[in-house]
């Protein structure tokens, strides 16, 4: 294929790929690089299922072109656990049953991680605002909010 050559770092690995100019980062991640964690819910920035970080900013990968990540640092859900040990957010999502079908979960986890790294002790309202770009059609959000609160406590090092 002749396409745009892009070099980037994804979850700490240097990666090079070719993509067509109109191809989104989400398509590149899923269809070219086999990173299937980010999901396509809407494709228009509304649901957050495709959330990843680019140069330290949470973004919808469905609204970023693959070509735009040239020289940038990309973080996806695949980089969240270290080896076999899950991130506290992942553990707490399981413990609180904060997922049913799971389509929204990678996006919620990325958004929650970004939120807690910027604000380690958010109020419930701050959590709900912080996650307003992520939609879940199954859980009713409450369990997600509880899981994030609980994970925040663990990440702060308070007694869980």
């Amino acid at each position: 294929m002749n396409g745009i050559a892009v070099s980037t770092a994804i979850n700490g690995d240097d990666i090079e790929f070719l993509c067509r100019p109109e191809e989104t980062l989400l398509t590149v991640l899923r269809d070219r690089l086999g990173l299937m964690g980010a999901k396509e819910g809407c494709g228009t920035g509304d649901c957050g299922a495709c959330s990843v970080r680019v140069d330290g900013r949470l973004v919808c990968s469905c609204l970023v072109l693959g070509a735009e990540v040239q020289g940038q640092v990309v973080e996806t859900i695949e980089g969240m656990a270290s080896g076999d040990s899950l991130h506290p957010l992942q553990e707490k999502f399981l413990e609180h049953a904060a997922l049913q079908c799971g389509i929204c979960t990678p996006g919620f986890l990325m958004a929650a991680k970004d939120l807690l790294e910027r604000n380690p002790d958010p109020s419930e309202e701050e959590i709900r605002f912080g996650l307003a770009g992520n939609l879940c059609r199954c859980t009713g959000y409450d369990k997600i909010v509880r899981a994030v609160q609980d994970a925040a406590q663990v990440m702060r090092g308070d007694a869980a």
Partner: protein
Amino acid sequence: MHYSRPNSVAEAVNLLGGNTGNAFILAGGSDLLVRMKGGFVEPSLIVDIKAIAELRQIRATDKGFWIGAAVTCAELGESEMLRAAWPGVVEAANLIGSKQVQGRCTIAGNLCNASPAADSVPALVAAGARVHIVGPNGSRVTAVEDVPLSPGKTSLAPGEMVAAIELDERPAHASDAYIRFIPRTEMDIAVASAGINLTLDADGTIKTARVALGAVAPTVLRVDEAAEALVGTKLETAALERLAETCSAAARPIDDKRGTIAYRKSVVGVLAKRTAELAYKRARANS
């Protein structure tokens, strides 16, 4: 479609000028990519401006503040300097979309997309912000309200682009505010909105005012009669009532699923009052 990522404004302008087809600037892409995917636009060339260092900067100038066209709204919200001087502009920019959208979107993109409901635009008009435009014939500076012409249309000539938006420095006893009404508290499009900027005397009398309304006409509305109703007052009840009346009278909204004409005209008056009260309180606190 071609994708290009120039490193300078001159290169970007050359690319735009050299393109005979349908060239689009790409800032955050939160409007452009949605429109491309929906098949509403088919660019032949995309000029991504995010690798142009000077467009990524917020800086203090001798006149005020220079906000490069590729600065994201998240970055605006993190600027202590801007938050202190122009809280209304920053709160408007920070209402756009979700955290994810904030990480990409720009106020220049919000302006150039020319939606009647664009959140940062009434706040920028109230602030008297200036737009730096560059193009094949050099550069020019214009008022924000002169950029949108009708829904989706701007006054930018072919080959022109916005390089930056400039705000004045902030004198004492002055401040601004922006409030929109949406049916939920996040992630929705304004039914009506108001941006107001006030300068007071030391005793609290309003010296100058600028009032702008969003989502109640094909473009942002600057309402000078509403501003006049405030000047010389200390925002007493009579002045607030006059503000609401002039705003409701100036509004020329449409009926749609978000609200009827009558509802929007009424709500925009109420919003203007609340916005004026917030701007006034901030101005009093800024001594």
